[in-house]
């Protein structure tokens, strides 16, 4: 589904992530230890954050929730991601962790979501990158140079279909005009509509089978 070229484990599936790895608790303990005597005060909220932290990745977006007394939930969609920041400090590098911070266009300068405790942080970052707007846009679907001359590959089927429908309508109108001229003397409406329907079917069949059914397209059909 996504291309993860330089991830160590190719079978990394971000959509399966629900919980941070246990090593995150160790990291939190280290961070709390750095405060020295403030360790219990610093560690307690981090511990409860670790215990309650849940991630949910789906096709459209990502959400995370944590907290015991004060609960927080953050939801965002991949398309609204503005920039992705991958931050690794020394302790995180030793433990193989990283913080993936996601920015949306909201008013705060701090990250809207900080995903911690995922060992495959680079793969996760690349997953988010591949989902984020603009990562696939410019180069992948349509090379820009052929976008003006011919129908693009993505809208190709729709363009073909609409062209065919238009031709059918034109031919039906042509047939109707022709029958209207032919049946001008007798103004039987039932007959007229029936013949029009028949003609429309006929021309639509022609249009489907023939590659270019508008051989007489250049002659404006209606004799006025």
């Amino acid at each position: 589904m996504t291309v993860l070229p330089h991830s160590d484990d190719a079978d990394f599936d971000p959509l399966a992530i629900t919980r941070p790895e246990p090593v995150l608790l160790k990291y939190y303990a280290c961070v709390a230890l750095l405060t020295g005597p403030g360790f219990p005060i610093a560690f307690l909220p981090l511990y409860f954050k670790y215990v309650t932290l849940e991630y949910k990745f789906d096709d459209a977006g990502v959400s995370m929730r944590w907290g015991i007394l004060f609960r927080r939930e953050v939801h965002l969609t991949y398309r609204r991601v503005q920039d992705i920041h991958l931050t690794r400090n020394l302790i995180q590098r030793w433990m193989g962790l990283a913080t993936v911070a996601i920015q949306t266009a909201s008013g705060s300068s701090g990250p809207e979501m900080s995903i911690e405790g995922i060992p495959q942080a680079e793969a996760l970052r690349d997953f988010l990158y591949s989902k984020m707007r603009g990562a696939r846009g410019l180069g992948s679907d349509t090379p820009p140079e052929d976008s003006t001359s011919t129908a693009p590959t993505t809208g190709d089927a729709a363009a073909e279909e609409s062209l065919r429908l238009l031709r059918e309508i034109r031919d039906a109108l042509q047939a109707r005009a022709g029958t209207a001229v032919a049946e001008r003397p007798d103004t039987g409406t039932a007959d007229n509509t029936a013949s029009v329907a028949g003609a429309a079917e006929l021309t639509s069949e022609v249009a489907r089978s023939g590659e270019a059914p508008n051989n007489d397209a250049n002659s404006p059909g209606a004799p006025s």
Partner: protein
Amino acid sequence: MKPKIEAASQWCYRGVWGVLTNWFRVPDQPPTLPASAHDEQVRSFKPAVGFLQYLKLQFWVLCVVIDVAIFFGWLVIAINWPWLGVALAIPALFVAVVPDIVAYIAIHLRFDTTWYVVSDRSLRIRRGIWVIHETTITFDNVQNVSISQGPLQRYFGIADVLVETAGGGDVRAQQQAGNAMAAHLGLIQGVDNAQEIRTQLMSRVGESLTTGLGDHDDSDMRAAMTAWTPQHVEVLREIRNLVVAGADR
């Protein structure tokens, strides 16, 4: 003598790098962007050499100021209390010299760990030694690109390119406060071809048809825009003629 010093410093520096990469897990390869199936240009570059000289000039100025202050402080102490001055001579020398060496190495490391990677669609910036910070921005999300250059930077022929995305926060204030990791901002610092980079980035941004605020992918937009070909218009015109002729009758 000079080449020997050069070689020795190189050797020391490589030793420092070895410690960093092995013990402190500093990546010694430039960052990459996920490869796409389509051939796109990925250009990775570093700050210009002028940036290193610029940082070194700042370093020397700061170094001289601090060391002179330390020296005069020591001199005052030594004149008033000679025995204390003798006792403090070694610590003062230590305080004066060791941070300078560390800072000097740190400047080189900062220069060597800063990487900018630009592809057709996105920009990735890595910076930092203790805290390694990687920013990824797609050009679809870029709101503006600006260049800033101070007089000293102009002397060294370098400039900073700021790539900003939508969203608030006091980015400028943070940036001026020295926080180069401010959000909503990609800072391409100390490059000598800022204009060229600006032009390249802006042309990429210009190719994006969206406002960078979460609208649909421009691939969809392109498809919607070009779904009507000249053939469609021709057939439509014929239909119009037929309908008009039918109405006339």
